[in-house]
């Protein structure tokens, strides 16, 4: 009898190399499946078990997952854009134009980066509204809401720092206005303004500082807090389910059942 694909996969999972990487090994028992989650550095952030209705579309609309998706798109397209962009006053604007008109797929990557950035801001807000109106921010999840607010601020700062990099008139005046808002902080305002721009006006130092913030400091900070955010979902008792939802779902299932008869 010919082997099925599943059997080939099981054989692969039984090889010594596979077992050296994924310790859980073959088997479909609850223990094996739990171990597969627990022993993977990425998956261990998540719960080993989840109720089916909590991963249904209606529970979360997958807004958090979609936000992560846009973030990953932004990281990948951003790294590719970095290969052609020089953060210097004579070259920044020309490089942005080269990406549009000269580099193969440059226009696609630049637009994908820009639209994903817009989408990420929208999705972060949508995710927060969904969490808020479902009451999923309440104890024991209140600290994860705080982490979420920090991630919102990082998202906005990423948008703001990325805004300067094309080095066009819109970018220049937007950052001039934005950094002057920072100097309205009592007492420390002018120092913050000076440190942010690395000078008294939006110039070469400001461009380089915003580039480093946009490409290194803020993304690394975001990844750090995203990891805590996911891990806290598991530690705070898994994805949130509203107490009234099982009844609602039973009623809906009963209604569907009646229609079917």
């Amino acid at each position, binding site marked *: 009898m010919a082997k099925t694909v599943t059997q080939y996969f099981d054989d692969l999972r039984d090889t010594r190399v596979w077992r050296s990487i994924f310790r859980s090994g073959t088997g479909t028992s609850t223990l094996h499946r739990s171990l597969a989650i627990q022993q993977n550095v990425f998956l261990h952030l998540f719960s080993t078990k989840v109720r089916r209705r909590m991963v249904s579309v209606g529970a979360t609309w997958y807004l958090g997952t979609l936000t992560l998706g846009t973030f990953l798109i932004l990281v990948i397209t951003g790294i590719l854009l970095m290969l052609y962009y020089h953060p210097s006053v004579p070259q920044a604007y020309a490089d942005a134009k080269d990406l549009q008109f000269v580099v193969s797929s440059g226009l696609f990557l630049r637009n994908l980066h820009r639209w994903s950035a817009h989408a990420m801001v929208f999705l972060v807000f949508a995710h927060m509204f969904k969490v808020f109106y479902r009451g999923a921010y309440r104890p024991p999840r209140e600290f994860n809401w705080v982490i979420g607010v920090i991630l919102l601020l990082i998202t906005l700062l990423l948008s703001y720092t990325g805004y300067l990099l094309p080095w066009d008139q819109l970018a220049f005046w937007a950052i001039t*206005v934005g*950094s002057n808002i920072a100097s309205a902080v009592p007492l420390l305002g002018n120092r913050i303004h000076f440190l942010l721009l690395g000078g008294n006006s939006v110039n*070469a*130092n400001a461009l380089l500082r915003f580039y480093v913030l946009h490409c290194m400091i803020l993304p690394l900070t975001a990844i750090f807090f995203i990891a805590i955010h996911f891990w806290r979902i598991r530690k705070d008792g898994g994805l949130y389910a509203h107490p009234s939802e099982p009844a609602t779902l039973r009623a809906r299932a009963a209604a569907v059942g009646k229609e079917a008869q």
Partner: protein
Amino acid sequence: MADEKHPPESAADLNRRAFFVKLGLGSLSIAAAGTAVFAYQFLSPNVLYEPSPTINAGNPESYPVDSVTLDVNSGIYIIHAKEGFFSLSAVCTHLGCLTAWKPDLGIIACPCHGSRFQQNGQKIEGPAPKPLPWKRMWVNDDGDLMVDRSTDIRPLQFVRV
């Protein structure tokens, strides 16, 4: 006797431990404060490659009477009024946008948030909190108008050539 087998830890021992804990935390605090100072100093550039605040605005005769001339690169107006010459900052006191002279209205207007100023810098309306400052102006040995952008002066100090 229980007291002989387990004598209470002497006050000297406790004090020694507490002393080292304090010493360690104190050293860490000093190191943290030093790091903060170091970071602040590192992030503040000591040398700036920015344009000079002093501007040579050229021959006074190139500015006719009742004219307002914007120097876009240096962000100042050279104004030749009937009373004499003066220089205004062209940078809006609200959030730093570059203002523009509107000859048909006879006012200075900011394109960003709608602040409007008179020809002498006085605020007419808008979110700007302060009037446009007057800048120090003088005539150098060659007879050229000079402006120091870093020095504000009281209004209505005209330069007569």
